[in-house]
């Protein structure tokens, strides 16, 4: 079987109820159903999770390395976007 023909799926696992799904890795599969079962066998067979999402990699729109300049750097010099930038009056010290 030709592995190059298989789609790549990204796998997200929720480790316990109430927590978020966290990206844990990726795998090859024939179909979303297979991907889900492989994810079960690869990532949670030692009871590491209670729920799995699989997403075909091509369905993810991702930021690019070269976007960093426009995406992230403009935020660096805007301290006022952080709560710690503001000095609180003593009366609300425990906020």
């Amino acid at each position: 079987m030709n592995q190059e023909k298989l789609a790549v799926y990204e796998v997200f696992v929720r480790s316990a109820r109430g927590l978020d799904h966290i990206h844990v890795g990726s795998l090859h599969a024939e179909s979303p159903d297979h991907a889900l079962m492989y994810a079960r066998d690869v990532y949670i067979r030692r009871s590491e999770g209670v729920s799995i999402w699989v997403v075909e990699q091509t369905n993810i729109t991702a930021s690019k390395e070269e976007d960093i300049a426009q995406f992230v750097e403009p935020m660096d010099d805007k301290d006022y976007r952080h709560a710690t930038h503001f000095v609180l009056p003593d009366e609300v010290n425990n906020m």
Partner: protein
Amino acid sequence: MITNTNTNTEILTRFVMSLADDSLVLGQRLTELCSSAPYLEEDLAISNVALDYIGRASMFYKYAAELTGEGSTEDSLAFFRDERQYTNLLINELPNGDFAFTLLKQYYIDVFNCLYLEQLSQSSDQTLSAIALKTLKESRYHLKRSIPWIRQLAGGTEESLHRLELAIEELHSFIGEMFVMSDWETQLSNDGIAVDRASLQSLWEEQVSTLFKECALNYSQTEIKIKGGRDGIHTEHLGHLLTELQFIQRSHPGLEW
């Protein structure tokens, strides 16, 4: 009904052992795919199924050893019985063949085991019903895994369809045996301990023929062609499998990891 307690224990032991043999032989067969499945993900998945079966065998052998007494253990039962003493159904010992054959064989066994374990979970024998309840969940997962593979192979390429059709033809001879009861099993099934496998046939055929129809595969009626596993009469394949399984314990009895 007047029953002889000694005879019953003996038959019960034989029955438990046959279930253990089914699981061990299939488990051992599937472990051959560890590191040689078509790709990494399938390798892990199918080895996982193999491990489920080895675990299942361990539970049945432990119970069989308990019933046998005389110092027997799960290991002594697995490693020091010969081919003719193994009473697994023949479909479990068949070589893996190509991927279509492996998966079709697995699909047939999965459908069978889901039906079988559902019934066994109603057994009047508490230990057997507990093992059945636990392992039924595994078999339901195995079936969930094998069904899409049949769809995939049937609707894949010309080559995959062709290989699946060859597998259907080749496996046909081994289906009938799954539903043939030995006399000693019938006695246990009348006592509410064992499962009447014959009664599962129509349900099995209904499920398989429905999937085949959906996949435009030819389904031919079950015939009883080859049997004998439950009576210790095997294909030429079991001896080789046992040789590989048993040789270390036979060469170095009692060797531990």
